[in-house]
């Protein structure tokens, strides 16, 4: 069993990450992965040039590790792999990959879903959208918080 989380300053290839996970999980029957992509427009439809993900020099990587370990502890999965960008991300580039392997599909689906809900609220980043209309710091939405709260009974603190 393993939980691997990486803070990545450069563009990454999700297919290579998925291949690495598959290679580490030869006995598993299921792999579920999610890839989050940088959109070219804000929630209000304004065009964006980039997303800037500021991270903490020590604690952001620790937050990714903790979320990944929680997924491994709370679901019947064998391997977790998380890659999260930091710095400037251009439209179309992957921001995050969250993947889980498991003997059976349901746990892998649930773990990937859980990983993304936790990452959207608990990963230690400060996000800024930069576009022709200016820059704006953004925070988790009510929907993000509600999504993360879904797991409070399944995975009590």
């Amino acid at each position, binding site marked *: 069993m393993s939980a691997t989380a990486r803070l990545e300053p450069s563009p990454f290839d999700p297919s290579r990450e998925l291949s690495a996970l598959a290679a580490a999980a030869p006995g598993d029957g299921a792999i579920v992965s999610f890839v989050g992509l940088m959109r070219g427009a804000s929630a209000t439809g304004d065009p964006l040039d980039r997303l800037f993900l*500021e991270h903490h020099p020590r604690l952001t990587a620790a937050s990714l590790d903790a979320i990944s370990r929680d997924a491994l502890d709370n679901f019947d999965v064998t391997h977790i792999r998380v890659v999260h960008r930091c710095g400037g991300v251009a439209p179309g580039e992957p921001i995050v990959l969250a993947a889980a392997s498991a003997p059976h599909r349901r746990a892998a689906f649930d773990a990937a879903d859980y990983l993304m809900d936790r990452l959207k609220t608990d*990963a230690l*980043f*400060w*996000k*800024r959208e930069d576009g022709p209309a200016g820059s704006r*710091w953004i*925070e988790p939405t009510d929907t993000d918080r509600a999504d993360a709260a879904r797991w409070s009974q399944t995975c009590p603190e």
Partner: protein
Amino acid sequence: MRILFFGRLAESFGRTVELDAPDGATIATLRTLLALPDPAVRACVGEAIVGDDFAPESEDEVEFWPRVSGG
């Protein structure tokens, strides 16, 4: 005392500020000196979020965090 800022606060203050804080200054003292009353702005020393009563040592680095965005 060295103060570090993140996110939108770093745009306002710069990444670091050297602050001549009085002896025994608490986080509340620093908030007053820096005009940071917003309770959503959290203070971190080392790897711990600290409350307004916490009195950092002069050699500590005190970080002020705006609300975290998530990933």
